[in-house]
């Protein structure tokens, strides 16, 4: 794989760790606080079912290698998940300590501690089966779902190739996670372990362009669709195609890869999901004079997590509710303002615009974060893979699609959730594929 490029110094400085790592003794104190629950609710809440008390108690005994391996056994992206997971609504949210009138155990930070130690000691992923097996599996997309499936299969000896149109693997884990949570090189470092298992990667390959789906079908026994979602919805209003309008995922990828190291003037972010928050926070840190987040509904309808909203307020982001953008205005080449109209929510919950309520917000950059479209063109090429509402329909337990040669997981199945959900899908599918191959070929 490519050498992992170091980050741009300016980005490192602007995006320090939001949750700094534990010092060794602090990790032991925290791990000793864990009650070691039976059938622990944290483990049940984790989509990958990491055995949380097990890895935490291994930190307490100083068995850091064992701790990391027990994490990786359940979740091959344990390092990035420890830093990007919304733990407040997952493991830490389920911690019984909440009912003990105490802070929950800092599971995410402990997991990071174990994983950092694993990398510091040049740990490698173990095989789950030493035998080499001839069957070939293609994983389309190099995001968390594919990586998890690829690792699970490769660890059992299968021949796995991962395809991605981007030059770097990791999907949103590499290009889309706020840098103060997971810096880009750390995502690549984690994937290096999967490559070292013997998973082959082919980058810059767009299926349907450089390589047809038919070629893939003829070359591989099983195809895993971990393609995620496609481009972001564009701002379909006058001026929406101005070069000063840049979608949130592009904006985030640009600063993470060092293409953008700072911005000037005022920024407006449109949308109220977690990506909108990430973009707004990034704009603040990149030097925007002000960042305003526009949402046509209100706080109560926001799809972002509460803690993300609280964080954005601390970063200095201003929220403007019940505002619907109607036009982007430019002064010669530069963006000058965004025009909105006020909205109101009727008693029945329906949303209406308020007549003659247009107003302008001065801004120099507009960042829409209004969702991604599914990759319908690509999915249409996969014969007999049934979609429901633009999502790939699968058997939940195995990830198998209506075409038995195809399996799928991650955002293209769930419509866009967390990294850990994609990993859980990929892992389940990897295990299911291995089982089915064993059953048919033994």
């Amino acid at each position: 794989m490519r050498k992992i490029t170091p980050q741009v110094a300016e980005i490192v400085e602007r995006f320090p760790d939001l949750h700094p790592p534990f010092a060794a003794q602090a990790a032991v104190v925290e791990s000793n606080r864990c009650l070691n629950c039976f059938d622990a609710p944290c483990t049940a809440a984790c989509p990958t079912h990491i055995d949380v008390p097990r890895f935490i108690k291994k930190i307490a005994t100083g068995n850091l290698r064992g701790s990391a391996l027990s994490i990786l056994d359940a979740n091959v992206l344990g390092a990035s998940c420890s830093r990007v997971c919304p733990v407040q609504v997952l493991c830490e949210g389920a911690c019984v300590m909440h009912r003990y009138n105490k802070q929950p155990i800092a599971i995410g930070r402990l997991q990071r501690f174990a994983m950092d130690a694993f990398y510091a000691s040049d740990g490698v992923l173990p095989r789950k089966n030493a035998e080499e097996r001839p069957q070939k599996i293609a994983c389309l997309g190099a995001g968390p779902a594919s990586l998890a499936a690829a690792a699970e299969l490769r660890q059992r000896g299968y021949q796995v190739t991962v395809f991605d149109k981007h030059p770097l693997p990791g999907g949103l884990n590499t290009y889309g996670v706020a840098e103060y949570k997971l810096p880009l090189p750390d995502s690549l470092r984690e994937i290096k372990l999967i490559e070292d298992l013997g998973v082959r990667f082919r980058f810059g390959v767009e299926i349907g362009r450089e390589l047809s789906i038919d070629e893939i079908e003829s070359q591989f026994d099983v195809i895993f669709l971990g393609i995620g979602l496609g481009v972001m919805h564009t701002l379909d209003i006058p001026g929406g195609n101005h070069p000063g309008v840049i979608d949130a995922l592009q904006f985030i990828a640009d600063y993470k890869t060092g293409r953008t190291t700072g911005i000037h003037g005022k920024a407006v972010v449109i949308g109220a999901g977690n990506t909108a928050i990430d973009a707004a926070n990034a704009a603040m840190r990149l030097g925007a004079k002000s960042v305003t987040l526009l949402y046509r509904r209100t706080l109560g309808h926001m799809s972002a997590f509460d803690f993300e909203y609280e964080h954005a307020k601390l970063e200095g982001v201003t929220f403007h509710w019940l505002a619907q953008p109607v036009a982007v205005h430019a002064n010669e080449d530069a963006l000058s303002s965004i025009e909105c109209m006020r909205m109101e929510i009727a008693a029945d919950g329906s949303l209406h615009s308020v007549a003659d309520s247009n107003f302008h917000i001065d801004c120099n950059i507009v960042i829409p974060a209004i969702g991604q479209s599914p990759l319908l063109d690509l999915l249409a090429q996969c014969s007999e893979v049934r979609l429901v509402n633009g999502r790939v329909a699968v058997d939940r337990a195995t990830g198998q699609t209506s075409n038995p040669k195809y399996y799928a997981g991650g955002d293209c199945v769930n419509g866009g959730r967390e990294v850990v959900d994609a990993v859980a899908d990929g892992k389940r599918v990897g295990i299911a594929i291995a089982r089915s191959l064993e059953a048919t070929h033994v």
Partner: protein
Amino acid sequence: MSNPKPDISVNFAGIHSPNPFWLASAPPTNSGEQVMRAFDAGWGGAVWKTIGAQVTNVSSRYSSIDWSGQRMMGFNNIELISDRPLEDNLHEITEVKKRYPKHAVVASLMVESKREAWHTIVQQAEDAGADGLELNFGCPHGMSERGMGSAVGQVPEYAEMITAWVKEKAKTPVIVKLTPNISDIRAVAHAVKRGGADALSAINTINSITGIDLGTLIPSPNVGGKSSHGGYCGPAVKPIALNMVHQVMSDPDAALPISGIGGIATWRDAAEFFLLGAGTVQVCTAAMHYGYRIVEDMIDGLKNWMAEKHFDTVEDFRGLTIPKITEWKHLDLNYKIVAHIDEQKCIGCDLCYTACWDGAHQCIHLDRVSGPIDGHVELHRKPAEVEAMSKAIIAVTPIPKLDPPKALQEPYATPLARIPRVDETECVGCNLCSLVCPVEDCITMIEVKTGLPSESWEERTAATLTGKGH
């Protein structure tokens, strides 16, 4: 000055002390300067670091056992007796007594097993002004290799003989400090009582090796790559000390005024020793850990507890628990308790469940949702099945917009499925669940009336032997 109740001053075998909290013979009482600061902090007495023929000590000297992130649950030392000149120690004893006439200063003594040597040291200590003498028959390391300390305390005849020699000379009360490194501590207590001892102190430290560095494979404390067994003390040894104090105090042939020693760090610990008959307590590890200042709460806490219990003096409650500890054969076989889980307090850690299944009697179940089934193990889901069910669940990250929170119909803060249930028909009342439960008063043991009269094993077997049983 008024002497407000409760009055915690004590007269221990003729040694008067403003309170029952003494520093044990150890590093905290190594010099006059230290003992005076200790008295200023509130300690009622001090047993001077053992004097005798001056020794040379090694470095390092201490090691400890940490537990669950807490430091020094157990403490170990290989330090010998005072390594300062005898004359300095004697001179400082005089100085301390002059400045603190109302505090108890006890000289701890250890010399070679010769009558003259003991006579000389007794004379010297009493001339210096010591209020009493404590014979160190307990030190388990180093000195014992030279025929002193526990080498004496482990042989009743030696202990009796030396006690008698000391009593020939001593004008002040003689306390004998007992070693726990013996099969039955009462054997030596009997002997020194025969030898004329006025009082006892127990326990000295317990032979120990605290641990081994897994990097270097060297045990601790490390003295140039080697170690030696040491004397174990600190909170870890308190239960052992309490038992030995009780053994001595419940035996009329052994019982004497006793100064309790072993893991005492708080007034609560001290009160327990008094309840088993101790007249004073001696403290070392806790003072080495936190400094002399800990005595403030020991005094304050003891007084507050005594006031609450309407005890005016330590004598009012000293020894009250001795008769409550009997031989097993006198316990009531018809007394029955069962565990009760308070659903409001349960946090759902389910430690009681796993403890009962693996470590007790398989009578706590996670079946509140599927419906209770009382009775034998075979009727219930086993721990591995419970875990497998959880692991089989497909969990996803809840997203507020996509996954509106389900309206909870749960009666308690903890989901019903995670609140364990006790099968009272099978519960043997062992206490284990209530011990592992992290929440105070969540699991309580409730008495169940059996309707049967009290009957001990002794009574039951006697009845059987005489043909009256059934």
